[in-house]
């Protein structure tokens, strides 16, 4: 069933709930006009971010994307620092240089930042995997791309090279049904997205992206395989983008029935129920956990809002490394 202990499973729920709360507060604040620029909701993607991120070791490299706030937090970026980045503050991860989760790289955490050209993270993550191969270190690199990203040429270039070089890379293909307003069936003729990996003889599988334990088991096995020198693989995690592309987008183009279908499979609610049914976790324990996390997130946003903007005199700092 699962290789995780009951304590770890409850901890996974804590991180999923934290991810959900982070997102809810963010969306609420942006709607109140207390945000800056735009933001991309991760609602519905909690099981992918936490399930995939849970199998990572600190020495592995991770290159998440704009709906993987849970994975960024798992890698050690504190929520207040992340919110500060959303608000353009000096203590944000990018020191006011980029917005929301963009550019949240931190080499002390083996965390690779992404740019708005999402599929560009794929070859970069491959390069970090190649550094392990170069140094003969038994580690792996993980990156996430969307269904939209899987149509880009660089996706195919990366998969081809990853297999060619037997790189320890795991690609999580987060299929959330839409690339902005375009549904999967309108942007690719391939019926199953993970089939794309097979064109390059890369092992691939599909998992229920709203089942955190299923995501964890598949990605964790792929990471173990990569670390053992057995090459790259791809895991397609099927989920649903529950809100629009970004905060401005009401996503009127998404059919109500589709949202209802996925709402009934909400990854956070579903895992909460699972813990009660299978691990016998009491409602009081869950409520206390949720209260603690809600408090933590509220404090994080308040701390970010109270943080200063960067000094304009620093605008030219850091274009070049010494």
């Amino acid at each position, binding site marked *: 069933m699962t290789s995780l202990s009951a304590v770890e499973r409850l901890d996974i729920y804590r991180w999923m709930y934290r991810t959900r709360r982070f997102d809810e507060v963010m969306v609420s604040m942006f709607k109140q006009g207390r945000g800056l620029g735009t933001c991309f909701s991760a609602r519905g993607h909690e099981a992918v971010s936490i399930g995939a991120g849970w199998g990572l070791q600190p020495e592995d490299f991770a290159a998440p994307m704009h709906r993987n706030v849970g994975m960024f937090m798992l890698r050690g970026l504190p929520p207040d620092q992340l919110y500060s980045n959303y608000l353009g503050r000096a203590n944000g991860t990018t020191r006011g240089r980029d917005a929301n989760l963009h550019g949240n790289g931190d080499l002390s955490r083996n965390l690779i930042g992404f740019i708005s050209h999402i599929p560009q993270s794929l070859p*970069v993550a491959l390069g*970090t995997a190649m550094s392990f191969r170069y140094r003969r270190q038994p580690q792996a690199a993980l990156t996430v791309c969307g269904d939209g990203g899987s149509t880009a040429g660089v996706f195919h270039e990366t998969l081809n090279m990853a297999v060619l070089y037997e790189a320890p890379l795991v690609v999580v293909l987060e299929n959330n049904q839409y690339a902005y307003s375009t549904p999967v069936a309108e942007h690719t003729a391939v019926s199953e997205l993970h089939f794309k990996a097979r064109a390059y003889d890369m092992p691939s599988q599909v998992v229920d992206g709203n089942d955190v334990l299923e995501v964890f088991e598949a990605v964790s096995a792929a990471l173990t395989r990569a670390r053992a020198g057995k090459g790259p693989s791809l895991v397609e995690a099927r989920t649903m983008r529950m809100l629009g592309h970004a905060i401005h987008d009401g996503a009127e183009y998404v059919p109500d029935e589709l949202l209802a279908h996925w709402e009934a499979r909400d990854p956070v609610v579903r895992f909460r129920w699972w813990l009660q049914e299978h691990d016998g976790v009491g409602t009081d324990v869950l409520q206390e956990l949720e209260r603690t996390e809600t408090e933590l997130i509220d404090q994080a946003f308040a701390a970010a809002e109270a943080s200063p903007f960067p000094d304009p005199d620093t605008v030219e700092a850091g274009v070049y490394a010494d």
Partner: protein
Amino acid sequence: MPTDSHAGNSRRITYLEALAEALDQEMARDPDVLVLGEDIGGEFGGAFKATKGLWQKYGEHRVINTPMAELGFTGMATGMALAGLRPVIEMQFADFISTAFDAIVQYAASTHYIWQGAVPWTIRAPADGGTSSGPFHSQNPEAWFAHVPGLKVICPGTPADVKGLLTSAIRDNNPVIFFESKTLYRSLRGPVPPGEHLVPIGKARQARPGADLTIITYGAMLQSALAAAEELAGEGIEAAVLDLRTVKPLDTDQILEFVKATGKALIVHAANRMMGCGAEVAALIAEECFEYLDAPVRRLGGLDTPVPFSPSLEQAYRPDADRIAAAARDLAVW
């Protein structure tokens, strides 16, 4: 004090031999240096043989043959560089670099500014024309990259500089685009120190002294400018030649110093003149030392067309020593 490598007693080797020597010496010195690119693995040694022998010496581990996927392998090099390696990427032709544009100008160039991730790779890009190689094997695309914050752009014009600057580029902690003149690969020979040789990035060099005007140039046009200056000297016109060597960062101090001393400036590059790097140099002079000018700033560059194939057309396209001399004469009598 470093000796002037251009005037020393060093042995004379070709531009291509000098760059191959830099690659070999840096790979021997630092195990984190590796090379990757199309057709560079195995016995073949690359389209221009710049990497010949490296595969035999350092193995496929450090000499990585890539598929025809410039965007993918440049992004891959960025990941390797973020992880602390020092990849040297060979673009088979500088013209193909546009295929990797996102990986260079969007990702690698912005990473340090945004999240302090250093990207210490070097792209070696065989550029330049004059050899009837047609529109897609003759370009000098340095201006595309000189416009991008976060990149360094180097265009060496001598064997000594190609070795010294490539060594500096490999050791630099930023993404560096290194435009080699493939026209000079085998045609230009010069003194090159055999041992470790470093030339600082961003420093121009006086290639010839002169009091009447300054020819500001870089890359393959350096040789044409020197030939023109030699011809002019026979006519009593003393043209200084300032070799920029690096176009980003630009050595603004020396440009201004030379223009102030001579009062006249002729800027020459092989790339097309329109919006080329020479425009920035001309603007700098106009803004910073207008009162020292005795004549308008002049620019020579390629025409605003794709680089044509046929010799008669390419000669019409590209500046040469005769045209440089003619423009200098006009300035001298202004």
